[in-house]
């Protein structure tokens, strides 16, 4: 396949591996961010990284990844701290505090960036690439940094799995077990910040939150347990990274970061629609099937009642009469019941119209339907003619 042949290309391979790493780590920690309803925190962390990126560049004097990531982490942490400070000491709610912090840090970062590009040679360093990400700038040495930071984060998640899980689900209960919940939540926030920071070079500060939230949101649709959700989110994230890298490499002029985010969003759309139980399509089909079986049951019971009223088990009811009882056309319902062998057409020569009679199976099923609702039926359905 042509797309896979791209793996032979050195640059493409580097980008694909980096994107897979970033996507997997973002998926895992994004799952926790999503379940803790901290999606917007990820957005604030990534936007607030911009001033840190600029300061990291200023201090190091070069575009080496480590000081830039360190700077991004520090300014992200300061922004998170500002959110905490605002919510604790003022009457500002969390969402507003996140917005205030995000815009303040991002504005400051933009000012720094434009200034640096005029004066400190940041233009040559391509610092503005951090806005939307620049995959091509990724070199093998960067992969080592990503692998160490990302791998370290995942290791912490694996080792602290039980504690992260119980704290995310029920913090008060975790406290009653003596777990240092504040510390665990702090570690989790740092890990989420790290997952954001290592993706900035690839995806950029503006879109990085999508790579944190989208794989997790998609995985949530399919998973029944946290273990499954986290693994699936890692797979979705890594797949988004690889597919995005390959697609953007095979078309000229497609920026890698946004393409990765588009692929991740496609995972979300498909999952929202198709996932069993939680998917929109599944729920529609389920509702439709429910309504169908409800109609079928109603018609069966009507037939049974009519037979009872006439003290004749083989009483043949006219379809028009059934329509009247049912409150609408019953033809399609009856034909479906006929296919299932629950009713059959009866010959009733002198009268016009199709007549229907319950088969033995149909009678049996009607009786079963009536028994559990005996009381309710008597209370509600007393007024039938």
């Amino acid at each position, binding site marked *: 396949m042509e797309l896979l042949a791209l793996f032979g290309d050195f640059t493409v391979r580097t980008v694909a591996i980096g994107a897979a790493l970033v996507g997997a780590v973002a998926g895992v920690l994004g799952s926790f961010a999503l*379940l803790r309803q901290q999606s917007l925190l990820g957005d604030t962390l990534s936007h607030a990284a911009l001033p840190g990126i600029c300061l990291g560049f200023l201090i190091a004097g070069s575009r080496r990844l480590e000081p830039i990531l360190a700077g991004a982490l520090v300014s992200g942490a300061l922004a998170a701290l500002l959110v905490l400070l605002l919510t604790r000491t003022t009457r500002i709610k969390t969402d507003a505090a996140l917005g205030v912090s995000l815009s303040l840090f991002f504005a400051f970062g933009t000012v720094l960036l434009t200034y640096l590009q005029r004066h400190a040679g940041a233009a040559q360093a391509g610092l503005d690439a951090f806005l939307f990400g620049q995959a091509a700038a990724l070199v093998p040495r960067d992969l080592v940094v990503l692998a160490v930071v990302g791998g370290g984060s995942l290791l912490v998640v694996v*080792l*602290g*799995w*039980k*504690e992260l*899980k*119980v704290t*995310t*689900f*029920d*913090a*008060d*209960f975790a*406290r*009653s*077990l*003596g777990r240092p919940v504040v510390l665990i939540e702090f570690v989790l926030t740092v890990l989420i910040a790290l997952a954001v920071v290592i993706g900035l070079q690839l995806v950029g500060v503006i879109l990085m939150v999508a790579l944190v939230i989208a794989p997790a949101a998609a995985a*949530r649709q399919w*998973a*029944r*347990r*946290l273990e*499954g*959700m986290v693994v699936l989110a890692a797979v979705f994230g890594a797949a988004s990274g690889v597919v995005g890298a390959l697609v953007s490499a095979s078309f000229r002029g497609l920026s890698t970061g946004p393409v990765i985010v588009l692929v991740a969003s496609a995972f979300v759309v498909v999952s929202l629609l198709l996932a069993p139980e939680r998917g929109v399509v599944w729920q529609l089909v389920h509702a439709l099937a429910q309504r169908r079986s409800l109609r079928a049951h109603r018609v069966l019971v009507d037939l049974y009642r009519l037979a009872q009223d006439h003290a004749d088990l083989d009483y043949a009811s006219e379809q028009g009469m059934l329509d009247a009882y049912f409150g609408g056309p019953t033809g399609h319902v009856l034909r479906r019941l006929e296919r299932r062998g629950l009713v059959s057409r009866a010959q009733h020569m002198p009268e016009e119209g199709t007549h229907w009679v319950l088969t033995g199976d149909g009678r049996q099923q009607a009786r079963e339907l009536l028994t559990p609702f005996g009381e309710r039926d008597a209370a509600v359905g007393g007024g039938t003619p």
Partner: protein
Amino acid sequence: MAGRALGMGGGMEPAVIGARQADGSNGSHEPAFALHVEDLTATYSGDAVLWDVDLNVPPGVLAAIVGPNGAGKSTLLKCVIGAMRPAAGHVYVFGHPYRRQRHRVAYVPQRTSVDWDFPTTALDVVTMGLYGRLGWFRVPRRRETDEALQALALVGMDAYAERQISQLSGGQQQRVFLARALVQDADLYLMDEPFAGVDATTERAIVDLLKDLRARGKTVVAVHHDLQTVATYFDWLALLNVRLIAQGPVTEVYTPEHLRAAYGPRVVLLGVGGHAPQP
């Protein structure tokens, strides 16, 4: 004044200071009580929600903490388990600070305090009750799963072990929470509104469960909101409205005067001490 405390009163300082005590440890404080709360004051953003509360729950009783909304009932439990730092006061569980007695306490939070859409199964939630025993890095194994399944069976939920918690009814969710507490095999059970929003079947199941716990010598302290049932479900009562109004055996505390002191003069009292409610 209504601040009078009934029932267990009076401090019993250890007779011989420094001597080894019955439970083999020094510094034990009021070991005669399963739960002993001393001068507890707690505030939310400056406003007192608990004021100078002294509570003494003897072991082996089913104790209800009852009071109007905002009386500080949940806050009291949170102060006991260390989820909230009191402004002043002390808490002792079987004579020792909570942090030394965690393994003897099981806490059941309000059902609505967690997100039931969390991706996990009933069995998973109950297994969390064993995390305290497992410590930080050990993972649950066969033995833990078996214990969790047994606890689920005790609340009649074993058939739902692998069910997603989002698919359970409110009563079933509450029973899962109780199973998580049972698996902790504690001596003191702290329950926040265990009867809130549950169906009749679950309510009966919980009552049976509480009586079974008492029969096994356990102590239960439950926040309760239903004045009609408190005298039949519980045998020990603490009336709370920021301050402690009264505490003691339910037959002594559940009187019109005490209830009016806790709820105000307009409380509707049914069948309290045989008196009709005052209009």
